[in-house]
């Protein structure tokens, strides 16, 4: 799986029917995959032509073959995606490994300067310079560890307990309300309760919370006082849909393709604090839950980010609802 030769072979030989959708989702993560998606569209056209000829000969055999080819290519696409993820993971680990020691040394050196009282006699300029070095070292440390966390989330085992998203959205709303800017937004959470409540999803509650919280916090961050932020949940046959919409600044068309990438920061974000890790984190969490993410935006009008999560077989999950519904621990909750 980690041999580059295999990866090249697979990338070269993988025609994708079922793989196109997956490829589109993943294309933001890796430029090589973007090439692959373009290639696979051409291959689909060729395959379609070939299939057309085949139909005139033996329809049933052709169908079976197409189905088999499609399944095989989907597996190949998955493998390519896995390898790309592995490559990225290895890169983040190397980066982390190479930077963590120098950063630890820099921080210890700064602590020495501070603790040694050397700054008491220093000029104002020196004091300011040391303070600035300290802030920037912290910033690099945060960035490196954020990237490493992201890589870690791609591989760590994910808990799959039933999660009540209705309760989770309430909590997200509470958490977001603590962001000062949220008081100047109109925040609406719409969750269906009739004729039945939202189904449970299977997953890691903490991670799903982080994903949704990030989206809502982003909506607040990239909107202005008076703007509206809507959190909308709905259900279709076998999936749960969650949308976070805002009437904020929107994302320019030339930036929308990059929003899911690590460290992607649009022009509008450059004046705001943050490491550009939020949406990449959301994507990793959702993908690890077998879900999909999507984004629609109009420059100057606003943005809608959607999450689609599969709903497991309801018959199996329903009896656990009462037991697993998370109660609030109000009396024990410390003041924040």
């Amino acid at each position, binding site marked *: 799986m980690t041999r580059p030769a295999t990866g090249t072979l697979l990338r070269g030989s993988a025609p994708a029917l079922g793989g196109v959708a997956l490829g589109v989702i993943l294309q933001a993560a890796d430029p090589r995959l973007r090439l692959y998606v373009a290639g696979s569209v051409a291959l689909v056209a060729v395959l379609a032509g070939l299939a057309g000829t085949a139909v005139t000969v033996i329809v049933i055999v052709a169908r079976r073959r197409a189905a088999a080819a499609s399944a095989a290519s989907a597996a190949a696409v998955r493998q390519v995606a896995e390898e790309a993820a592995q490559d990225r993971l290895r890169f983040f680990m190397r980066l982390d490994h190479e*930077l963590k020691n120098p*950063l*630890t040394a820099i*921080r*210890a050196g700064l*602590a020495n300067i501070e603790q040694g009282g050397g700054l008491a006699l220093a000029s104002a300029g020196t004091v300011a310079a040391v303070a600035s070095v300290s802030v920037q070292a912290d910033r690099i440390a945060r960035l490196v560890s954020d990237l490493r966390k992201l890589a*870690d989330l791609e591989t760590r085992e994910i808990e799959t307990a039933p999660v009540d998203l209705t309760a989770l959205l309430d909590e997200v709303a509470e958490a977001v309300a603590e962001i000062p800017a949220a008081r100047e937004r109109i925040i609406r959470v719409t969750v269906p309760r009739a004729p039945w409540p939202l189904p449970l999803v299977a997953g890691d509650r903490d991670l799903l*919370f982080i994903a949704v919280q990030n989206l809502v916090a982003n909506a607040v961050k990239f909107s202005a006082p008076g703007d509206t932020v809507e959190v909308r949940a709905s259900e279709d046959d076998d999936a749960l849909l969650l949308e976070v919409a805002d009437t904020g600044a929107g994302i320019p068309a030339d930036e929308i393709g990059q929003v899911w990438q690590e460290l992607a920061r649009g022009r509008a974000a450059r004046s705001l604090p943050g490491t550009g890790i939020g949406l990449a984190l959301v994507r990793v969490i959702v993908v690890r839950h077998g879900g999909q993410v999507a984004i629609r935006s109009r420059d100057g009008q606003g943005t809608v980010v959607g999450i689609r999560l599969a709903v497991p077989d309801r018959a199996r999950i329903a009896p656990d609802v009462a037991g697993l519904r998370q109660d609030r621990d109000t009396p024990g*909750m*410390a003041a924040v």
Partner: protein
Amino acid sequence: MGGPDVRPVVILADDDEAITSNLAPFLHRAGFTVHVASDGNAALELVERLDPDGCVLDVLMPGPDGREVLRRLRRGGRWLPVVLLTQVGESAERAIALDEGADDYLNKPFDPYELLARLRAVLRRARPGRRPLSASPTVRAGDLRLDRISRRAWLRDAELVLTPKAMLLLDYLFTHPDELLTRERLLEVLWGFDFPVGTRAVDNRIAELRRALGDDPARPEWIATVPGQGYRFVAQVDDAR
């Protein structure tokens, strides 16, 4: 660590000279006598020779690495408190794993003041000559008993049903009694690193533990809330033999 003149002796083991040359004077100024080891064998040799009060071990070192050094120390009945310097993303579960018996751990790159705080805490908690709680297979607090190897807990005779994360949290609380544990730190325990957002995850797990224990937050027998800061395990903890 008797009178004010007695400086605790600690071993700082890391193969990166840039780190030891900066951290050693920092720890020295903070009141420790520091001896530097640049690999695992040197660390073992220093512990043998100096019988220090504590040890800071980097996990990645030439020779026996930090984990191996720790295992050998514990196997040899050396119970001195040890802080492991780990990698981001290594689960806390592994870092505080019983077969290693680290008293605490810290991800690089860490804030040196945080190392100082953790080092002071583990030294304060140390029970000279006795096995630290972090290396005890079973621990007890009142009617609550925890088997740290099988990760099972009993309240009187009833076994508690806990999620793996709640069990991990209970283990950490048990082995860090009477310490103020901030939500950020507990989040790190649950995940192996601090998340940039949301500490409700910790509150939820604490709530799960309290429900399982029937612990009243207003009059806690085990887990007390420290308003605005975090939690504290208030029960007296002992080895359960």
